[in-house]
């Protein structure tokens, strides 16, 4: 009964997922570029703290993106596995 509506909602949700995943990649690439610029500038004029902060930032960004693309699908699988039948 609700299948046609569900298909429409899931199609919109899939499009939104693809859009947000693309946006996340763009933001991560821009952030990575910013940190690389910060790191090289720091290395050029001898600001070791600036360089190390930039390296930590890049590592953090990579961890966040990996978390999004590896952890979230697992959460989805988990919720899908837990999806209960109607309790009435």
């Amino acid at each position: 009964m609700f299948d046609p509506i569900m298909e429409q909602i899931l199609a919109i949700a899939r499009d939104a997922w693809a859009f947000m995943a693309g946006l996340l990649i763009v933001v991560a690439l821009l952030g990575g570029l910013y940190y690389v610029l910060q790191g090289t500038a720091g290395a050029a004029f001898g600001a070791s703290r600036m360089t190390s902060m930039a390296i930590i930032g890049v590592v953090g960004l990579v961890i966040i993106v990996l978390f999004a693309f590896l952890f979230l699908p697992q959460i989805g699988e988990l919720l899908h596995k837990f999806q209960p039948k109607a309790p009435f």
Partner: protein
Amino acid sequence: MNAATSLMVTFLREAWVALAGAFIAFALLAGIAQILRVSSGSVLGANLWVWESISALASIIVLGLFAFLGIPQIVHALQSSLPGAGGCGPISELGTLASGLIGGLAALRMLKAAFTSMFSASIGGSSTFAKALIECGEAIFGMVLASAAIPLAAFFLGTC
């Protein structure tokens, strides 16, 4: 009466399955929205955004687990406390119909509250977990009231 009951309960069951499927989809969207916020916040140096998003992510997971593990258990518990038939004849049939429908409607209302909260989180709003819990509490209170009303109605309208 039995045919009408089974038709309405089937309708509610299908609505439950559809809502649960949409809930998973929006949970994932909410998750990626919060991750996007974390990444942009960390690049911009906005610590508050990062912490808000991390706590929102935790609340999304808790809300998902509550919706899929907690709500069915609450509904089972309340349905077992609902008296099925308090008399005989039409009152008995009406009692059976009412107890089935009350359970189904309360379960759907609780899942709808959790879904609304998750939808709000997926569009970047605050995850209104407290509102979902309040609505679940209202549904539970309604079921408790109904469990008292059915025997009373059977008593006043006639028992065998």
